[in-house]
């Protein structure tokens, strides 16, 4: 397989490829409502450090960007029981339109059923605007061992600025996930506050969308 033997003890490389019916990021579609294939690779080091790369095609109205890559890294440490915390930073790059590039730092916690994160960006989507995105995620096993329910609630805080074509908004997601071996299938319903998300970097957001995704992990 990969360099499992080359790496120091307990270091692990993992990855996944996914097919999503609509690339919805914080409630907004980055693929213009179209399905895309995505991939990610990740390295978990021995001293609780991690780093990864994520890539996806994008399609944004009035925007020449056609692909997105996120390079990220951080530190995750167990707390007690099933709880752990992590903190890190990520840089999002767009191929075709470097003007959209931005960086973000984040910190969060994770437990068996609940996780949360706060992300701060000083230049969200290349704009001179400082945003804070807060999110809470929940998952619950519906039927052992394959079926889970998922829920997500996020809030993007955007300071009101004349050139920012968006305002702070909520986005939510609820759905069902099924896991069979290395495969994971999710069917979720995404909702976003439409009035506050109009013409955000181009795409006319759908207040409610169904998203289906199929992933294979390795």
């Amino acid at each position: 397989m990969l360099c499992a033997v080359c790496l120091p003890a307990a270091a692990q490389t993992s990855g996944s490829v996914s097919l999503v019916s609509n690339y919805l990021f914080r409630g907004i579609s980055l693929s213009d409502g179209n399905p895309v294939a995505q991939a990610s690779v990740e390295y978990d080091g021995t001293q609780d450090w991690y780093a990864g790369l994520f890539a996806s095609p994008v399609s944004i109205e009035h925007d020449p960007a056609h692909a997105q890559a996120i390079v990220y890294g951080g530190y995750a440490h167990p707390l007690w029981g099933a709880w752990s915390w992590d903190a890190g930073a990520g840089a999002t790059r767009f191929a075709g339109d470097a003007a959209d590039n931005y960086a973000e730092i984040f910190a969060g916690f994770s437990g068996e059923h609940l996780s949360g994160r706060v992300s701060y960006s000083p230049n969200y989507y290349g704009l001179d605007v400082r945003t804070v995105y807060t999110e809470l995620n929940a998952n619950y096993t519906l039927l052992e061992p394959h079926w889970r329910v998922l829920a997500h609630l996020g809030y993007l805080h955007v300071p009101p600025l004349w050139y920012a074509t968006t305002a702070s908004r909520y986005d939510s997601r609820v759905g069902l996930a099924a896991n069979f071996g290395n495969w994971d299938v999710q069917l979720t319903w995404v909702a976003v506050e439409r009035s506050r998300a109009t013409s955000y970097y181009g795409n006319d957001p759908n207040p409610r969308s169904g998203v289906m995704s199929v992933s294979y992990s390795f």
Partner: protein
Amino acid sequence: MKNLAISAALLACSLYVLPARAADSATPPAPAAPVVPGVSGVSGVRNAAEHQVLVMLHMPAPHFRPDANYGGRYGGDSGHAARRAIAEELAQTYGLIVVNDWPMPALGIDCYVMEDPAGDSAIHLAELLSRDPRAEWVQPMSQFHGLGNDGAADPLAAVQPAARLWHLDELHRVTTGRNVRVAVVDSGVEDDHPDLRGQVSVRENFVDTSPYAAEAHGTAVAGIIAAVAGNGIGIEGVAPGARLMALRACWQETGKDGGKDGGKPGGKDGGQGTSCNSFTLGKALNFAILHDAQVINLSLGGPPDRLLQRLLEAAQLRGIKVVAAVDPQRADGGFPASLPGVLAVRGLDAGMDAGLEANMPGRVVLLAPGRDIPTTAPGARWGFVSGSSYAAAHVSGMVALMTELQPRASLRQLREDLSSNGNGASTMAIDACATIGRITGNCPCSCATANASKQPIRLP
């Protein structure tokens, strides 16, 4: 609308693909109910736990992941798949099979159970695997045991008076009454009671007015005589090797627990007991004689009866040993206990009418445990019983033990073996060890029975 159509299409495709995929995967990756360890390994190796090791892989704490799968859990994220792949690689390197896995966030590890189909010892495997840097640590699968009492012993034996007084465990090393046919002429015996399973070889009903039913008195008597020993439940019978003939000639009155009647034969306590009559008993005794019973237990009493007397004399002529319970309410001890050829029994602790012995001249009444006896009860239960009925059952068991050793001993010989003194006392507590000692020539118990002489002692 377009989204929905695409979603539906993707869903349809995945449903088609996934079940096949799930069937392909040889072992369940998500935490599943663990297989029963040690009983039968995946590879079919006997006592598999001795060839199983636990391989711990480092499991990083959950963290930010931008892919579609992120949901903050341990099951479906890509980290688990990667660890699974590492475990499979490790297994392949050392020729093992991955049996099971369970993530343990409490320690930050993912625990994999691996088994060696070649049967290599777990300790050796653990040593070998420990040197591999891919595993955080490796240990053999260990076995643990509950620290309760020995599972095979009959739990109620501890409170059985016979177990203590008659040293049943030691006696049973010498004799169990193997294949001795003991006829229990009584109310119905629950022959499918867990502690009586396989002990009843014949079951007959001689009561015309009701069908065969499991009843308290008969079940209790049967249990005392021949309850299965060493099956880890209930009690051990005095003669667990005996073959019981459950001859239902009596019936339980008014559905109340007959065991509570104090074992009074004949049911004199207001209709709660066990009742029989000359006809039903006659039929049962006739059957017992014709079917070669070796011992007949009659835990009952009543007025003198010509039919029953004739039948019992016929039985004695054929060498059948008859054991009967003494009725303390009757001056003569009740019939058939009053018959000379019958072994009359009452309980050790029972208070006796002073005049009773006087009214049973020349008779030796045997004493056996008859109070607070744990025994089988209908409904697959056990209960405590008291009364001369149950003392008689003890003696029937004792006679069965003796009969295994001396099948053709006469009644006289039997009485001689049972007696421990020649001073003419009219009651005699049975010393089981001494009795068996007299028959075999060796004292079977650790009891020091100085009186276990080999000379038969004449009864007055």
